[in-house]
């Protein structure tokens, strides 16, 4: 985990001047990563065959060569690639994501922002659930290593790792949606949603989101509890745990206060690193459950070769990823007593 302390090491120790310089360097580096991502994406997407004008021109017998050229110059696709990239970049730094190249040609940012809350919200809820379940499981199976509990958990974890999320989604739909008829199969709201009162609406949303959130949670639960267990085993091997036990502290205090706090640190880093996977996973799950989120938007954009939309999504995805990393670093700093102590000395 070499990225563990992207920002953490910058804040720790040294004079204020040195700290500021290090923070500046990290911020610069983050910006460079973002730039690198946009360069690769832009290149890959624009060099690939096919064009967003295909739908209206090549596939439309009524449109001729002139119409195609006109459309291309409208979108700026007739300029050299580096000019196109530079144009795009100068607009993006002003937060102008451009207009969608699809038929509605609405601003990309509007379309993304109206989809973002659902995807981010679902991921956050399932992340909370994952942590609530995975941390106790990981700790318990580390403390009772090779017990029946540990072995059961290990088996479940391996099954969870190997389970394709979309298959789990299908099975759950089959069981809860078709066999038991408890939950709706897909979509975000029922047909009579507008007529319901507040609680009716909330219950309707909850029943539609229950299965997707369950699938998200199961998907990340395996990795998280396995990782928690490994970190806990590593910490329990340390000398300061032996010291704490030798002092006569109860094992509950040793485990939940001394060991857990240290074992949580790498888990925080893992959370930051798991963002790209969550974003990618939303494409599949939102398409199965027909949820109007970011993943579905991206899928539609890719299918229509909507360049501005795809680039917008990739940028937002990268920003979310980097934000996850930075947030993980900040939390890391807050959770690590050694760093807090270093801050209080001043």
């Amino acid at each position, binding site marked *: 985990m070499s990225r563990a302390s992207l920002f953490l090491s910058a804040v720790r120790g040294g004079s204020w001047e040195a700290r500021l310089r290090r923070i500046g360097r990290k911020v610069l580096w983050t910006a460079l990563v973002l730039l*690198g991502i946009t360069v690769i994406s832009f290149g890959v997407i624009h060099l690939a065959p096919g064009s967003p004008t295909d739908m209206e021109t090549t596939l439309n017998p009524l449109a001729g060569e002139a119409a195609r050229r006109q459309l291309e110059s409208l979108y700026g696709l007739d300029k050299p690639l580096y000019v196109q990239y530079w144009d795009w970049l100068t607009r993006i730094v002003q937060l102008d994501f451009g207009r969608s190249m699809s038929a509605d040609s609405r601003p990309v940012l509007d379309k993304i922002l109206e989809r973002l809350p659902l995807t981010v919200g679902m991921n956050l809820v399932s992340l909370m659930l994952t942590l609530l379940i995975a941390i106790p499981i990981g700790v318990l199976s580390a403390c009772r290593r090779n017990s029946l509990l540990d072995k059961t958990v290990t088996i479940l974890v391996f099954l969870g790792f190997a389970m394709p999320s979309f298959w789990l989604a299908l099975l759950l739909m089959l069981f809860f949606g078709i066999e038991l008829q408890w939950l709706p199969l897909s979509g975000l709201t029922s047909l009579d949603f507008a007529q319901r009162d507040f609680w009716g609406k909330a219950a309707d949303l909850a029943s539609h989101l229950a299965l997707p959130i369950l699938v998200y949670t199961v998907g990340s639960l395996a990795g998280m509890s396995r990782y928690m267990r490994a970190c806990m085993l590593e910490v329990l091997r340390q000398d300061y745990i032996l010291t704490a036990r030798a002092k006569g502290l109860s094992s509950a205090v040793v485990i939940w206060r001394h060991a857990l706090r240290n074992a949580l640190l790498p888990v925080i880093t893992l959370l930051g690193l798991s963002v790209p996977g969550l974003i990618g996973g939303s*494409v599949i799950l939102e398409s199965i459950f027909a949820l109007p989120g970011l993943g579905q938007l991206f899928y539609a954009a890719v299918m229509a070769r909507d360049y501005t939309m795809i680039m917008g999504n*990739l940028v937002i995805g990268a920003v979310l990823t980097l934000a996850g990393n930075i947030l993980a670093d900040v939390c890391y700093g807050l959770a690590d007593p050694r760093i807090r102590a270093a801050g209080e000395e001043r």
Partner: protein
Amino acid sequence: MPRCLRRFLGRHSMLALGLGLVLLMSLAAMAAPLLAPYDPNMPHDAVFAPPSSEFWLGTDRLGRDIFSRLLYGGRVSLWVGFVAVGISTLIGVVLGLVSGYFRGWVDELIMRVVDVMLCFPSFFLILSVIAFLEPSLTNIMIVIGLTSWMGVARLVRAETLSLREREFVDAARLAGCSTSYILWRHILSNALAPVLISATLGVAGAILVESSLSFLGLGVQPPDASWGNMLLEGKSALEIAPWLSVYPGMAILLTVLGYNLLGESLRDMADPRLRR
């Protein structure tokens, strides 16, 4: 069963189970033409037939035999897994060796590229590329390979960094061995175990990505069977023919489980701290 074998199985039950699953799935895929009761693409009159003695796992909307399609789909999934991991391992090993052995600005550059690639929502990129190119088997394998080499690169670099300081590497250098010979003969051969372990786990990951792509309709194209596109067909008939959705997923689960168990138990065996 001989006693030593029994003891081995008792002590390494995870390894044995993993190896068993991997072998079972590989053999089934290789022997698909011998084992399959029907041609996987031949339609029968019995449409959406439930599992029976005639069609062991039932038939789909065109009356094709699910069991035969599963066997042939397995060939696709395993082939994609192996080739994609081959590509990513090759890239990762070369970049990791260069990075760890020469250090300096080359190392810095390669590791920064690794950082950038790890920040990528790579499934987004895979999707865009596959959708833009023809969704063919070759493209899928290349794209998965090109987006999953970062872990191997870091691993090999770390091994190389420690191996290059060892006496036998100094001795080889003094004896006048060429750099490529040292890298190949002395460093890579000593770093082979972790690379193979990560490749084993990589096969599992690649199979999952391929089935996700096929499930979105961007992977293996009909009429050819793959476990992912069989599930896609199953989804549209979830209410009338649930068996279409059950078995292909089970095949993915067992295969991925096999590779994961194998890789993880090999890793545990290689880690001296966990050895008791």
